[in-house]
């Protein structure tokens, strides 16, 4: 019988090794699934791991999807590090997009490029407002933030559906639930010709740097995390848990809102009911697979983006469905959590405690 034996110190080796082992396990399960479905597993691997990096254009597409994932995950990592369970980033992303879209709709032919600043700021504010509801209810009413933030996702989806089907519906849109296409001036500028990569990537990278400095080089960042690691120690040191709660939720809400703004004014260019793509949920996995570390999450965001593109490729070229993406995302998190046991425990045969 296998037994777990607690390690005196968490294993540094396994804390890096575990995401890699988890990815290998996910690939093994994925390959078995392809075989079971009667599809060529090599073609499957090609869809997920080679095609997304096979040409400069595809790499660009990879970055287009990795950008919102990384921005949202950076905020979520601050939440998870401070033991605040915000799992409603999807809702904050949607509200951010609605706010940003509302500002973008105000632009007309004569508007200058300055409109981009209020568009992005509106996104951040929108996400913050939505996250603030969760923070307020947790702070004032002790309401569980997992359930509240998640319920607010469903509310946000309905709000979006109301806005694009009612007040903001495009009169020339053949009754489709969507707004008119935004003016070109509100479009997030692209970095290169021939690729959809926008300056959003720069925001994401700046976010990585900002988070690294905040977490590891500032007193506020330290105080933020102590509450998550050792609540009693944080109280003793006089670090406010309420402050940590609000900081975590406002930062992650703002980040998710920014991602929503970049998406709606970037690749999409209008508000539609197709806006929610599950980035808010996938970012939870990005945060964990990236070890809640800013640099680690760069890699995991790219990996998760590969899953998205691989799913689309498998749909168009292998006749499978795009939902394969969700299967592999969930599997990866499962495998990661199982492998993470190795960080804190040694596996032993026989009875525990014997040397």
């Amino acid at each position, binding site marked *: 019988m296998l037994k777990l034996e607690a390690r005196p110190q968490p294993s540094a080796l396994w804390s890096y090794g575990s995401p890699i082992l988890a990815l290998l396990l996910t690939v093994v399960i994925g390959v078995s699934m392809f075989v079971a479905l009667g599809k060529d597993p090599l073609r499957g691997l090609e869809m997920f791991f080679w095609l997304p990096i096979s040409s400069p254009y595809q790499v660009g597409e990879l970055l287009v999807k990795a950008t919102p994932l990384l921005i949202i995950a950076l905020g979520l990592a601050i939440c998870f590090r401070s033991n605040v369970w915000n799992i409603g980033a999807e809702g904050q992303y949607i509200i951010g997009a609605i706010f940003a879209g509302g500002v973008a709709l105000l632009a007309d032919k004569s508007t200058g490029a300055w409109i981009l600043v209020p568009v992005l700021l509106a996104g951040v504010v929108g996400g913050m407002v939505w996250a603030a509801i969760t923070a307020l209810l947790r702070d004032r009413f002790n309401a569980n933030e997992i*359930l509240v933030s998640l319920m607010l996702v469903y509310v946000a989806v309905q709000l979006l559906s109301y806005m694009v089907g009612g007040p903001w519906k495009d009169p020339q849109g053949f009754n489709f639930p969507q707004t008119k296409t935004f003016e070109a001036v509100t479009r997030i500028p692209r970095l290169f010709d021939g690729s959809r990569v926008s300056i959003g990537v720069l925001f994401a990278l700046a976010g990585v740097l900002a988070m690294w400095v905040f977490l590891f080089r500032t007193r506020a960042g330290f105080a933020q995390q102590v509450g998550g690691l050792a609540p009693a120690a944080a109280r003793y040191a006089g670090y406010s848990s309420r402050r940590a709660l609000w900081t975590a939720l406002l930062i992650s809400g703002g980040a998710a809102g920014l991602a929503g703004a970049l998406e709606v004014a970037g690749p999409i260019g209008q508000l539609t009911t197709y806006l929610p793509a599950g980035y808010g949920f996938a970012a939870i*996995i990005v945060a964990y697979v990236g070890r809640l570390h800013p640099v680690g999450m760069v890699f995991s965001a790219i990996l998760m983006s590969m899953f998205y593109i691989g799913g689309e490729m498998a749909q168009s070229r292998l006749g499978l469905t795009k939902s394969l993406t*969700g299967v592999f995302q*969930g599997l990866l998190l*499962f495998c990661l959590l199982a492998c993470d046991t190795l960080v*804190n425990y040694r596996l032993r045969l026989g009875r525990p405690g014997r040397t």
Partner: protein
Amino acid sequence: MDSYALLVAATLNAGTVLALASLGLLINEKVGIVNLGAEGMMLCAAIAGFATVVHTGSDGLGFVAGVAAGAVLGALFGLLVIWLNTNQYATGLALTLFGGGFSAFVGTGYVQARMPERPSFAIPWLGDIPVLGPALFRQHPLVYLTVLFALGLIWFMYRTRAGLVMRSVGESPESAHALGYPVRRIRLLAVVVGGALCGLAGAYLSIIYTPLWVEGMVAGKGWIALALTTFATWRPARVLLGAYLFGGVTMLQFHLQGIGVQVPSQFLTMMPYLATIVVLALISRNPQWIRINMPASIGKPFYPGS
């Protein structure tokens, strides 16, 4: 009058889905395990049950498939959380994300599928009573069985020795372990039973309640069921009442649309979610009250000898 009878009937119907799932989650939480994977288990059970009925034409086999799907996923969750000491919240989330993707993947071919026609479930004589008949006595048998199950659970938890052991595992796994009870096995059993009940709820949803399969059709009912255990301060009778209350809120939107209330449908659809938030805030307002009622070891791992 008849429209109110139908509202009551629809409320019981919708409440049954929530009640089954929430009673399952209650059993989990009574031994100290929070399973955020309810939504994912219900989705997988919904497609398992639906597909089975489409292929075999038998509701019974459909329910068995749904229960099995829920139990298997519950066991997987339990092994990770209880034996590998993974974080309960993160593991539950993984289950929900996986369940959402997996059910959508498996269910692609069933989106247009139709169920065989069903005979009426009306009970002879009782079903013909005016008003009361259509309100109460034309339900699927599972609606009544759910009430019986809740009563049975109350008896089990508070009147039997096994129920006492189960509650003690949730209150203090260390003491239960010291007394020689197999804490981890009891927890696993509770998690599997809880998963099976979530599976039954998911199967009822796709086989009887809607009855059809759409991606993501559980639409937050798993999460509302999770919130219900807190509303009910972990008492089965209150879980049942809360489930019917929320079933009523879900159904009210169709009733309001029916009688011509001029509110955009999106705001009516929001109601159950908003109601969950409001009630959760009201109930949780007093931390003392929650602490007294909540199983003490909830969310905490227990590993003997560590």
